[in-house]
């Protein structure tokens, strides 16, 4: 350092100014400056002088502040405002945290998982079970259901909703509604083939609606106009309103899209409007996908030709294909409307009844339609219950853990507490500080928890709805969610902190002041034991659930499929061609389409690596099956049915037991044939050969030509049912969107390009979707079980780890408390093993108590998972025994180290404590 005035370090001086009261700062800074120049004068190097300055400045601040922390809080500023007290408490607590990062980490982590799991589950629950359709005032909407008298044959196109109306019936109801009541009619039109000019064909989900659909729902469009009454008049131009997603994908969000045309199933429609992003139609997902494109009911011959009967669909009272929703804000008005509708519909039943005698009366009922066609809730409801239950348990454990941790921390600081009590701190002050400590921990945990929730929410939705296709479930991190997280957090803090605070501040201050270390006079910690037992008890149902789902997964993967899923690739395709002709009803596949289909399969089989290709109505193990009552020998037999293409059994490797398979010659003009499975032979033919026999399915008479072995159809959980396979090429009224299945010896990824090319070459207007392997398809259906087994295993492991940490701490404490006694015992000749047993006894007792409470809890909660487990009973005794043993072993392991330490105590040093 050359010449000039050497100055004291400025930062150190600033530290003194900031860190000390002004008067002390002045005196101290002055002294330090003086010493600094002294040092320099005596020949010290500037850096040495500066170093001394720093050291003394830091020491001064530390000494002065340390004293303040000790004496000023309760002694010199007892009348400080509440807020000052709180801020100094917060600072005090934070300083304490910095000294014990492990404690903070365990507490925050457990709270984050507990709170996060709950917020995530509750937000998903709210979205899936409670969220209304994104329409205006959804709570005013009512389904108008029409239940028919006994004896009326209801030719429902789909049986998932009983409230189907024929067009004349719809008009009758609409006339009753008049202009006072808003009312809409609709039906879904799934899997439409759409082509926008210059784009590859896409598959989209449509809905056909009456003219007052948009006004009844109170929905607007972001471009163009909604559909209106005029669009449903006979001879009106074909128009469509497209969804936001299609607008982006097919038209790059062009603002001038209105007026452009889009081909739906090979027919041109004019685009008249674009719906907003939130628009989903009347279903948020499930069997009926969210709506991509909306067309008038009059578009039915193009978008849903299969619903047509033999007569004109607009006048045929026997074709039921329209659902009705009305807006009825006023209950009295609703009742009047219901009665009028019932009277108006009565004559319609006569037309439906046919020759059968009608008994009973027509009934019209109203039910809430605020959630539209709600299939997701039904599917996800049960798993959600399990998730909710599990996350509540985890939160309880986190609370118990927090309480235990704070209690332990309190014991460690009992001397400090006693000193502060002695110095005049009121009990309320101390409790407040504990609660603040709990609150800070809970807030940190809660903040992490909300992050966990936001991150895991969509994942949970995805898991709960796998196999349902796309669902429009909006999870929003809104104020409700944050308030929920906050509420849980505060409840947790109060639960976790208040108890130990109460307990610790009650202890006699003078006793604790005298004890320097934990010893015989320290409390026995009954609350701590109870908390550990509670944690063990709550862990039991989690562990039982985890084991049950692990076994379920194992059982599901061990199910004998009856076909070979390896090397199977499937995709869905929309074949062109009419399936129904107005006035003539559902049609079998035309010779032209059948020819195209055959050529397509041949072309696919020609791709290198593909050994065979076939068609199938429903992909195997997808959760979907078709079911129909067949009449065999005059008796009705409930059967599953599956329309398949040529080479189906060969492709799937389902063994043919007798007769022949379905071939490419089984087309519409050939005699109708069926192949039945082994289960049918046992059930309907009592083991005799069914070949050559006939079965009546609806109005079709099928001749049985072959028998195949049983195989899994709809679900791994469902034993093979009596099933018949008919020919896809001769089934009338098919939607013509079959799945194509390929058996391949090469990697599925390499097939995408050649398969797409082969389809594009033969059927350029046919969109191709849902490309996946059969093993992926099966894995998808067991996704829920995999998630549960993983999640519950995680939760259970976490719960056990927390309980283990608690037990370890408790045993260590007990050892410390009884060191003296142990020393005496060893001195008097107790064996090491006896000492260990003594210390472990309390661990075993606690574990046993926890188990005694936990096993009934597990039995009680088993009913929630009764329908979700497979191949194992929810009250499986061996699982309970396994859990009990695991718990005991874990508990003993946790207590082992401190117990061992106790047994190794030197008797003399042990006696010297205290």
């Amino acid at each position, binding site marked *: 350092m050359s010449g000039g005035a050497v100055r*004291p370090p400025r930062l150190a001086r600033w530290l003194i100014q900031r860190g*000390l009261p002004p*008067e*002390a700062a*002045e*005196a*101290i*800074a*002055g*002294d*330090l*400056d*003086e*010493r600094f*120049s*002294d040092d320099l004068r005596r020949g010290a190097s500037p850096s040495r002088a500066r170093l001394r300055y720093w*050291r*003394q*400045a830091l*020491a*001064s*601040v*530390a*000494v*002065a502040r340390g*004293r303040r922390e000790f004496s000023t809080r309760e002694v010199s500023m007892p009348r400080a405002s509440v807020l000052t007290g709180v801020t100094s408490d917060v600072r005090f607590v934070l300083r304490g945290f910095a000294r014990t990062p492990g404690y903070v980490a365990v507490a925050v982590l457990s709270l984050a998982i507990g709170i996060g799991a709950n917020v995530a589950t509750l937000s998903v629950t709210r979205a899936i079970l409670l969220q209304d359709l994104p329409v205006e005032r959804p709570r005013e909407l009512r389904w108008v259901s029409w239940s028919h008298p006994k004896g009326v044959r209801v030719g429902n196109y789909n049986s998932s909703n009983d409230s189907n109306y024929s067009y004349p019936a719809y008009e009758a109801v609409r006339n009753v509604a008049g202009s006072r009541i808003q009312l809409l009619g609709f039906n879904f039109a799934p899997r439409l083939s759409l082509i926008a000019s210059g784009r590859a064909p896409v598959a989209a989900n449509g809905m056909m609606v009456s003219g007052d659909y948009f006004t009844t729902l109170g929905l607007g469009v972001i471009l163009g106009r909604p559909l209106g009454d005029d669009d449903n008049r006979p001879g009106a131009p074909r128009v469509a309103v497209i969804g936001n997603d299609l607008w982006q994908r097919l038209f790059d969000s062009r603002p001038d899209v209105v007026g452009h045309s889009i081909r739906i199933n090979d027919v041109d429609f004019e685009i008249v409007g674009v719906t907003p992003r939130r628009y989903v139609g009347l279903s948020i997902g499930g069997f009926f996908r969210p709506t991509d494109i909306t067309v008038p009911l009059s578009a039915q011959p193009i978008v849903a030709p299969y619903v047509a009967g033999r007569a004109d669909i607009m006048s045929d009272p026997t074709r039921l294909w329209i659902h009705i929703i009305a807006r009825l804000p006023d209950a009295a008005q609703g009742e009047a409307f219901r009665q009028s509708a019932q009277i108006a519909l009565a004559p319609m039943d006569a037309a439906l009844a046919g020759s059968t005698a009608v008994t009973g009366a027509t009934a019209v009922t109203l039910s809430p339609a605020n959630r539209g066609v709600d299939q997701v809730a039904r599917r996800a409801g049960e798993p959600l219950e399990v998730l909710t239950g599990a996350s509540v348990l985890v939160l309880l454990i986190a609370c118990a853990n927090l309480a235990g941790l704070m209690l332990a921390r309190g014991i460690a600081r009992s001397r400090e507490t006693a000193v502060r009590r002695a110095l005049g701190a009121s009990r309320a002050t101390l409790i407040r500080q504990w609660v603040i400590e709990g609150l800070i921990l809970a807030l940190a945990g809660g903040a992490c928890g909300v992050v966990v929730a936001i991150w895991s929410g969509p994942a949970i939705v995805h898991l709960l709805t796998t196999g349902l296709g796309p669902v429009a479930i909006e999870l929003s991190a809104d104020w409700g969610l944050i308030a929920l997280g906050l509420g849980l957090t505060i409840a947790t803090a109060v639960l976790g902190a208040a108890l130990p605070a109460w307990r610790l501040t009650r202890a006699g201050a003078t006793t604790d002041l005298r004890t320097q270390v934990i010893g015989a006079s320290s409390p026995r910690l009954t609350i701590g034991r109870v908390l550990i037992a509670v944690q063990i008890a709550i862990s039991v149902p989690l562990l039982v659930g985890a084991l049950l789902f692990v076994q379920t997964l194992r059982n599901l993967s061990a199910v004998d499929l009856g076909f070979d899923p390896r090397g199977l690739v499937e995709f869905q395709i929309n074949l062109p061609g009419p399936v129904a002709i107005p006035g003539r009803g559902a049609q079998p596949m035309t010779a032209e389409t059948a020819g195209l289909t055959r050529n397509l399969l041949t072309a696919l089989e020609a791709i290198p690596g593909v050994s065979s290709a076939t068609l199938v109505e429903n992909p195997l193990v997808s959760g979907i099956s078709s079911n129909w009552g067949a009449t065999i020998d005059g008796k009705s037999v409930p059967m599953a049915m599956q329309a398949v293409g040529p080479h189906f059994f060969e492709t799937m490797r389902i063994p043919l037991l007798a007769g022949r398979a379905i071939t490419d010659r089984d087309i519409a003009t050939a005699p109708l044939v069926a192949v039945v499975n082994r289960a049918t032979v046992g059930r309907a033919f009592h083991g005799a050969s069914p070949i050559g026999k006939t079965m009546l399915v609806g109005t079709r008479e099928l001749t049985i030509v072959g028998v195949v072995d049983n195989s899994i159809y709809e679900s791994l959980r469902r034993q093979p049912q009596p099933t018949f396979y008919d020919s896809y090429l001769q089934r009338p009224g098919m939607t013509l969107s079959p799945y194509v299945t390929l058996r391949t010896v090469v990697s599925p990824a390499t097939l995408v390009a050649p398969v797409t090319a082969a389809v594009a070459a033969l059927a350029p207007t046919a969109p191709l979707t849902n490309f996946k392997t059969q093993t992926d398809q099966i894995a998808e259906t067991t996704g829920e079980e995999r998630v549960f087994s993983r999640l519950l295993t995680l939760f259970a492991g976490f719960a056990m780890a927390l309980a283990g940490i608690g037990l370890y701490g408790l045993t260590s404490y007990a050892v410390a408390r009884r060191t003296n006694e142990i020393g005496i015992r060893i001195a008097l000749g107790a064996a090491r093993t006896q000492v260990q047993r003594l210390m472990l006894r309390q661990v075993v007792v606690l574990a046993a108590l926890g188990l005694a409470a936990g096993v009934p809890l597990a039995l009680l909660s088993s009913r929630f998972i009764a329908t979700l487990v497979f191949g194992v009973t929810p009250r499986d005794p061996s699982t309970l025994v396994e859990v009990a043993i695991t718990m005991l072993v874990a508990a003993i392991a946790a207590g082992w180290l401190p117990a061992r330490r106790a047994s190794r105590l030197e008797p003399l040093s042990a006696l010297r404590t205290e």
Partner: protein
Amino acid sequence: MRRHLGELEQVLLLALVHLGEDAYGAGIARLIADRTGRVLSPGAIYTALERLERRGFVTSRWGDPTPERGGKRKRHYRLRAAGVAAIRDAQRALAQMARGLKARVELE
């Protein structure tokens, strides 16, 4: 009022006896360092002096700022009668304890 004095307190009170009217933080620290080789931080000195002041053993006043102190005022401390009595008692007690031990611990 408790009369007992800690070791640091005794050292400080003795320093005040040495320095008389001129006692202030840096001077006290210098004296202690010169006589005992012990370096005390100003913080420690003032904390202890404040405590002694509360107990009525010393009084303090603000002095004038000087340039070598960066324009900061000095805090001067002076013994009070109670302080003199306290240090005398403490020294006496110590001497009583040390009597007859000269040979063993080489006290002067």
